[in-house]
Each structure stands twice: as structure tokens, then as C-alpha cells.
């Protein structure tokens, strides 16, 4: 018989998660909901009393708690006013309103593969995942390492505390996607971030979903763009570069060939949007 706990403190939670006698599963709801029977383990841990549902703005970073819902991400002014609203947009289109109220940052971190838009934004923003180990000590893991090519794991006894999103000046982001209909799941999505000066984009990040087995950054394309004058021609030339870094897996939503092509097209578009922001 499965048990259910709603601990009042992080310490108690960590103790439960580290139990050697029962496998305790933290209830991080992902945006793609699980049937209740799919939750594994001897006990479910409800994390709603731990105060992990806050968004804190500090001088150089924003800390988004692991229990922050997608609806909060979508509507929060702190989030909406940053990064050209891309994180809010990503959260909004990831699920219906009812599921946004239930889905959490922790949920998507542990289930990053579909829908992936919020994960793409985290990748593009060089997010850092803060875990708490069994002793309550913080462990910082860069998002790419945490995601582990689409197979993230949370070690026994550990808890996702929050995601840290660095704040820098002149950061701009763009999100592009293609799907069968406006609210259908993406076939391919791209998030691009750049720190923009008058003529150059620095620290460009390109995160792509749908053109590889898991959401990932396109490092070679990022290097290709860095420290060059950021022109429309440069943006348009990215299509081929992106396709060199894709290894799409075709499925019923889209063939590998289409996915790879769209990764290029959408990256180009996102970069052109960034370019227009530079002009602005």
C-alpha cells in the first residue's frame, strides 16, 4: 500500500527521501501529466509545505523554486519582464491552464523531453540547478549536466531546491517553434539568447528541441556566431551550421529530415529576431 507524506520542513523531507526502507518519490508534477499509476515507489512526498514555490530576484540572479508552477512562471511579473518574456511564453504554451497550475519547475527538470520549451530557456540562460543533498547542503549543477542528455536523475536522498537564472545586462531571447496547430506540442522548438551590444552578440546560446534525441544546446553553432559582427547574413547562414549538429529522430510528428531542416530555419528566425532587438 503506497504511503503519502506531506512534511513540514526540508530536513524531514530529506530524511524521507533518503530512507533506506522505503522508496520515496517527490511529487514534482511535470507538464506532461502522468497517470497516477505511473508514480513509482513506496511513498509519495508532497512538497507543497516547504516554501519552494517562490521566485526571488537578487542582484545578479533570479532563483526560481522547484515548486514554482508553470502558471506562476507564465504570469509572474519578475519573469515576464525578463528575457523578452520568453520564459513566461514557454511556460504558457507548455500546458493548459489547469495543468500549468499543477506542473512545476522540478517536474519539468525531471521530465525534460516533452514539452521542452521551458528547458530550452533554462539551457539558453545557462541555468544552474540547486539540489540539496541528504545533509541539506547545496549542490550546484549546471543545467546541461543535470539534464544528462535527456535522462536526468535525482539521486536518492536529494531534493531539487531551485533553479538559478543569471541576470546580465542586454540579454535578449527569442523563441520559435513549429507545430501542427497553435496549441499542439512542438515538432521543433528553438530558444536563442544573446547578450547584445550595438553590433555584436556575445555569449550566444542556441537550445533546440526536436532535432536530437533530447533537448540540447548547439555548441558549434554558438562558437560560429561568437565574436563576429552580428548581421542578417550571419543569422541566415546559421541554418546549415545547425543542421550539422542535429541528429534528429523521426516520429509520427515529423521526419528526421524535416526536423533538422526546421532546426535551421527556426534558429535563423530567432537570430533575426535578436538582430531586430539590437536595432531597436
Amino acid at each position, binding site marked *: 500500500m503506497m504511503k*503519502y507524506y506531506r512534511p513540514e520542513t526540508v530536513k524531514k523531507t530529506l530524511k524521507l527521501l533518503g530512507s533506506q526502507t522505503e522508496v520515496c518519490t517527490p*511529487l514534482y*508534477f511535470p507538464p506532461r*501529466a502522468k497517470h*497516477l499509476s505511473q508514480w513509482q515507489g513506496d511513498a509519495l512526498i508532497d512538497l507543497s509545505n516547504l516554501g519552494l514555490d517562490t521566485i526571488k530576484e537578487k542582484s545578479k540572479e533570479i532563483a526560481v523554486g522547484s515548486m514554482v508552477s508553470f502558471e506562476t512562471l507564465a504570469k509572474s511579473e519578475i519573469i515576464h519582464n525578463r528575457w523578452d518574456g520568453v520564459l513566461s511564453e514557454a511556460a504558457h504554451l507548455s500546458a493548459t*491552464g489547469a495543468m500549468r*497550475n499543477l506542473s512545476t519547475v522540478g517536474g519539468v527538470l525531471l521530465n525534460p523531453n516533452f514539452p521542452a520549451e521551458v528547458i530550452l530557456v533554462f539551457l539558453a540562460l545557462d541555468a544552474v540547478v540547486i539540489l540539496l543533498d541528504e545533509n541539506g547542503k547545496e549542490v550546484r549543477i549546471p543545467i546541461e549536466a543535470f539534464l544528462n542528455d535527456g535522462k536526468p536523475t535525482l539521486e536518492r536522498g536529494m531534493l531539487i531546491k531551485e533553479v538559478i537564472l543569471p541576470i546580465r545586462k542586454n540579454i535578449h531571447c527569442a523563441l520559435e517553434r513549429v507545430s501542427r496547430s497553435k496549441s*499542439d*506540442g512542438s515538432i521543433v522548438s528553438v530558444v536563442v539568447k544573446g547578450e547584445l551590444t550595438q553590433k555584436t552578440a556575445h555569449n550566444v546560446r542556441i537550445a533546440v528541441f526536436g532535432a536530437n534525441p533530447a533537448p540540447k544546446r548547439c555548441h558549434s553553432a554558438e562558437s560560429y556566431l561568437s565574436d563576429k559582427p552580428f548581421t542578417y547574413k550571419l543569422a541566415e547562414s546559421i541554418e546549415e551550421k545547425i543542421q550539422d549538429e542535429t541528429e534528429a529522430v523521426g516520429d509520427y510528428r515529423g521526419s528526421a529530415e524535416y526536423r533538422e531542416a526546421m532546426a535551421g530555419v527556426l534558429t535563423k528566425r530567432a537570430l533575426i529576431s535578436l538582430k531586430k532587438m539590437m536595432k531597436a
Partner: protein
Amino acid sequence: MEIDFTLNGKEISCEAEPTDTLLDLLRYRGCYSVKRACYTGECGNCAVLMDGRLLPSCVMPAPQAQGHTILTVEGLNEGKDLNPIQKAFVETGAIQCGFCTPGMVLATKALLDKNLYPSLDDAKDALGSILCRCTGYYQPLDAVMRAAAYLRGETVPPYTKADESVLFTNESCPDFSAIRQSVQKVDAVKMVKGKPVYTDDIELPGMLHGMLMTSPYAHARIKNIDTSAAEALPGVHAVLTYKNVKRYVYGSGGQTYPNPKPWDQVCLDNKVRFVGDRVAAVAAESVELCKKAISLIKVDWEILPAVFDMEEAMKDGAPIIHDEPDCIDVADASHNKAYVIDANYGDLEKDFAESDLVVERVFHTQQVQQTPLEPHIVISWLDENDRLVIRTSTQVPFHVRRIISPLIDVPVQNIRVIKPRIGGGFGAKQEVLLEDLCALLTLRTGRPVRFYFDRQDEFRSSRSRHPDTIRFKVGVTKSGRIKAIEMDMIENTGAYGVHGFTVCNVTGTRGLSTYRADSMRFHADIVYTNLPVPGAFRGYGGPQGIYGIECIIDEVAEKLKMDPIKFRMKNVVRPGEKIKIMDKLAEFDPVPQKVNSYGLDACIRKGMEAIDWNRRKSKQFHSDPSKPNICRGIGMSIMMHGTAIAGIDMGAAAMKINDDGSFNLNVGATDLGTGSDTILAQMAAEVLKIPVSKIVVYSSDTDFTPFDVGAYASSTTYISGMAVKKCAEKIKEQVLERAALMLQQPKDDLYLKDEKVYAPNGDHVTMEEIALHSLHRKDQRQIAAYASHVSPECPPVFGTEFAEVEVDIETGQVTPIKLVMTVSPGTVINPTTAIGQLEGGQTTALGYALCEEMCYDNQGNLLNPRFGDYHILQADEMPLMESYIIQEGDGEKTGPFGAKALAEIPTDGVAPAIANAVANAIGSRIDSLPIYPEKVWRAIKSQH
């Protein structure tokens, strides 16, 4: 564990386990408004408010409620009065089947509690949480905005949007008192209050749960099945397999006796023919025990090669899907042909040879699922007389009763089938899908049994729309006259024949009856494959046939350099003309058909005006320099759909007067949420000149209501309606006779008005006085009548669909901008319910055109058996939509008050209109559905 929370204002304490969903807990506590629909959080029909936030209760463990405040629709009910949100939903006609209504009401409350001035986008986002298959979302969106106005304390004018969509041609149309009135649906209040009115909303003492074990293989023999371990499990009461169930060959489609052939099904077989096919059925004390029992059933499989492609299935040497010796009337089992249809007239070869232009194209349509938000569910029990009672979510209660009788060895007289409110059908429930097994489990155990499909079962093991390959060839003269049309198709009927023959018939009819030609030929192979079984789906073959013909007609016009509308109007059938192909194509004996009531010209004019058709000629319309990757297009289609099945569909009605002058109206007709109970009451009210509220409708109970074929073939308004009209007229005669006796006046001088009978001198008696007099006072008799109706006609309904799209030429994504539908269904009985039908049908059709598709792997496993993966359109992605009903003169002479049908025609024209719009935008034609981005991208690539 014990949990404490506040439910609808009351503090409660109850037991719940983490493996119980909050949904099941709330239903156990009597909150039947919270619906079982998907169990994956995607449809929102289970949504509740927890501390003011809308949450999907189906994926939440029950203990999450601890310490929180939960509100369901039951908590909004204010005695007899309606909460302003509920009131708005009723007024706008936003409630059809009502299954999603509580979710929508709560989503609205969550929005308006925070913001009393929502924008339309806010409303779309709110309702985007709730999937609806009936309404198309526009009436619910109107309800949200209207509710906001109520809550702001504004004076809200009557809702007339639907009435304003009914247009009249210049000819005079008769006036009515109850007809053509947007009367509130008779069942709207109970649905908006979340009353327990659906099949699953009862708990019976000792009720067991039934569950189906399904096949993991697409094609296999069951060499042996060992149920001993399952049967030995405590709490398991019965296990059914082919070993202990009678083998009786039948067809499960809910159709008139005798069901069209082939008959190729048995309750439980020793062979399976698709992934999801029946293997065994179990009855146990709980759902968990059913699952455990199923896991203990040991099957010794012989896996057979499977075939999924229609053309491969017809080849020599293909795996034979129906090799059993007792299947009946399979056309050619060795080539997996369930049926073959041939029909033709004229000299096709000669006419093609004489044509100045011949255009040929092959079209492919996909398999899609009806996705009624209420999955299939049946509850059966033995009553106090040991008669079998089957309470089921069905469109065809009388067919269910007749079809299962020999399967379960119970005579028809000992079976009662009751259809309560049902949460959508769309054809999926024109079927005997679970009733036989549920009944058998009740008979074996002596106990009530509840048998249902979860959403995955619903996708895999229920029914869907037939996927087809259709080759059209059209020959025309250079002046634009069609000389010849050839239609050659292969229909994939999946593992069983079911509706295959009749749907294919309709595909052919709809493909070949809109336009005239000197010669026509239709050939169809209906082919078995090892795929889940298609069946009836709103439109019933029409969408496939009309997609093909309207696309090729458009292409012919383009090649002739003729305006597509002018070309169509040059060749479309006209009033007084015979539809020649109908002499050859029919379910049973062909019934010649002629066009009578029409309205197409007015439909075309209005559609052109509403979409601003002439923009097509402008280069500026097609492309915008500020959006270089976007091309725009406008397309259209003409639809023609039948009304009922001539000479076959029959409906009946019974009425009686009550002491207070009200009437009971009992009809076999099946209200799926379409509003048939309401419009039938309107018809009776019109004849008797009484308010609709004085008619108490009871429908779809085989013990108490007269026969009706059920809800399909767009027959209810036309056939059941005429039965009601006839019945009411008999009642009227009796009422006038009684009034004549009371008033001592000649009956022929009397007339009905405002619930009274008047004599020319002004003397009158009320309907109540008539009732009391006839029941109690003198020459006592029950004023009552029966009537039936069947029609030799199948008067076609004409309409048009116009679509405007934007196409992203880099990605291929098609965005629908606007849809305009115009239809001439004769007299519209209830504009609000009618517009709801049009909008809902178009929405389903838009999904068919753009995104819906059942996809399989190479083992025949369905890859997308859940919402989300199988995307149906949400409120927040709907294009602008305008729907117009055009009434011409008196409407259809053979229909009640001039009415025909409009239930299915909205599903017919969207796909070709979208396809033609895409062709207008990009210059290439997409000849397969759905028109998803990759297809368009490839078409554009192939141009360069």
C-alpha cells in the same frame, strides 16, 4: 489514511489512499459533476477549484486535498437558482452534451474571481484548459463574457447571436410560435448544475467492475487461454473467454435490421485481429482486482503475420484476417476484401475520350477518433423481475437491445436498455461495443456490473473514421461542363467490417452526387487490415468523399482558368434534377432521389460576402512584404449531405396529457447533446400552441419510449420530428374534440392558442380544464396518441464552407484565420442549438484537416492513444468562425415545419476548403490529410 478538507463549503473527513485520485474521491463523496474522461490531466473535464486554482483532479492523489478548500459545480448551485456563470452558459447554448460544462464553469469562475474585465484572449486561455468536442468553443466563450457582465452588475441584453445568424431569402417564410425559437435546452439546467445524469453517475449495491483484456498483438491465434489463476483470485467473480461464451456471428454496428454484411464478429474469439482486440472480460470487486486478474490470465499465443496497408492486404499471399469458416458474406476473404461496390451509369470511356481536359488525382484521408469526452461506459443489472437492465452511453438503444439478445441468449422482451445523458457520441457510440460483455457478466454473477473504457481503451479499442485512398478522375469540356467522373477507392475497414459497407456507400454518394455528369463510375474495395476498427463518425464517409471531389473540382477549375465558384455552379445539381448515381448506390435497394429544397445560391452569395472572396484576386492579399515568409489563401467547398436514410430510418413518438394540461412526450430518439429532446418538444408545442415548458420529454428507454433507430444519419429532426408532429396532431384532434364537447361548439370551428382552445365567439377552455374534464369528469378517456414516421425521401442539405489561411512557406505551418459556413437546412427549429451544431462540427472538421491522426508503429501499436499526443483543438487556437443558416421559403416540404438536417454537414466541407485555400496560397495541392506542416513544406520544396 484520513484526510480533512473543505468541500463546497463543508468540512469533511474521509479515508483515502495515495493511489486514489482526487477525482475518484470527490465522486465517491457525491460530486458527480467531476468527470472521468482521460486520467492524464489533459482534457480538464475533471477540473476542480482548489483554493481558487483550477486543477485536474484526475492526476492528483486524493491526499493532496488535505487542508485545502475544494469547490465543484455542486458548490455553486444556489438552490433552484443559477449562479450567474451557470445562467450565462445556459443562455448562450454553450451546453450541448454537458460533459465538459462543469469544468468550463469552474474555469470561468477561476478567471472571473481574479478579473471581471477579461479580454477574449483571457477567456480563450481559461477555456483552453477544457477540451470540448461538441461546441467549437464560441458559445462557451460568449458565456464567459456574458457571465463577466452579469457579475459586474450590468444589464445584459437577451442573447440573440444565433438568431441573427438565421437569414431569410426574399421569399416569405411562415411564422411560428415555438419553431425557429432559441428555446433553452430542456436538459441545460441539470447539466450546468452537475447533476448525476450520466451513465456512470449511479452506485448500485453490490456492483462489480468489469474490464476487458485486450490483445497486445495485431494478429494472433489464441491456442489456449488459462483463466484458473484469475478465477481463483479472491474478489474475482467471473472471467469470460471464447471457451465459455456462445459463438454467434454478428455485426456490431448499430444499424437497422438486418445489419449490413459482412458479419464477422463474435463476442470473444480464439483469434485476435488488432492490437486492442477483445481477449477476455473480467468482473471483480474493484478496478485494481480486475487489472490483477487480467495479469494472471495466461494466453498461449500463436503470433501471425499482420498486414496494415490496404493495398498489401489485397495482394495474393497476404495474411488472411478472416479465415474463420463461419463469417458471413465476406466478399473475398483470401484477399481481405470485406465488400466490393460497383455502380455506374453512362459511357465513361466515351465521355473521357471526348473531354477536352481530364484531371486525375489520388487522395488519402487518415484515421481519426471521435474522442467523445465521456468514454464508453455500461452498467447492467437484473431488476426485481430478473429482467436485464442495461444503462449505457449509446446512440442506439433499440439496436443494442436487438443485437445483443442472441449474443447473450436473453429474449428482447427481457432486456431493457436505458440511455441517460451521454457525454458525446459522434458516431463512436453507434455501436454495440461493451454492452454484450457487461450483460454477460451480470448474467453470470447475478450482480450489477460497471464496465468502462479508459481513454487509452477508447483510442485503441473503440471506433474511428475510415481512412481511405480515393482516386478521382474528371473529364470536362473546355467550356467547363463536366462530362465524366470516375471515383475509385479503397476503404480501410480495419479488423472488422462493422460500418464499412455503409460508410463506403456514403463516401461514394457524397463524392458523386453534388455535380452532374454524363457518366459516372464508382468502384470501392472495402479492405480488412490488422488495425483498430473504424466505424461511424459524424459525416459517415461524407468528409472523405467531399474532400476528394471538392479538391479535384477546384483543380479542374484552375486548369480551365475558370473561377472555382463559377465552375462549380455551372455543374452543381439543381432543384428538380435527379441525382443519378443514387439510382445505383444504396445500403439496401436504391431509392431514386431528386433535389427539391435547395438554397445553395444564397449560401454561396453569403459565404462569398462574409469571407470577402474577391480578395483572392489581389496580389496584396496573398503576400505581405512585412511578413515575407507568409502566404495567404482563400478556398471554398460545396457540401451536400443527406437527411436520414430513405425508406429505412423510422422514428416514433407517444404523448399523453396530464391533469394540469401539460404533456408527456416519450420518444425513442437519442439526444447526444444535440438538443433533440428540446427541438422535439418545440415541435409538439408548436402544434398544440403551448409553451415548450409544458412538455415533459422522456427519451431513449426501450421499456417506455417507442422505437427509434437512434441518433445517426442526420435523421432525428427530419424523421423523429415528423413522428412527433404527427403524434401532436393526433393529440390536437382529441383536444379539440374534448373542447367541442365542453364548449358545445363544432370542433372544426375551434382553434388552439396560448394553451387554450377558443371558439369563434371568444369562449374558451384551458388545456388544464380539458385535461381534468377528460380524465375525471365525463366520458373519461386518456388523451394520448402514438405516431411513427418513415420517409421515402432523403432530401439533401446544401451548404458551403469558405476558409482563409496563412501558410508559413519556410516551415509549412498552416494557420486558419477564418472559417465561414453557410447552410440551407430548411426551417431551423432552434437557432442556438443549430449554430452550436455548425460550430462544433466545423471544429471537429478543422482538426481533421490540420492535425488529428491515429499513428501506428510497424507492429500495429497505436502511438498516440492519449490527448496531448492526439491533439484535438482547444479554445485558444480557434480561428474566427461565422456560421449562417439560410432559410429559403417554406424549407423542405417533406420535413416537419420545413426542416431537414444539419447535424453532419458541418463536418464535410472544412478539409477541402482548407486544402483549396492552401493551394491558393502556395500554388501546390496537398492531396492527403491532415495538412500538417511537413507536407506543405515538402510540397513547396518540390516546386523549386
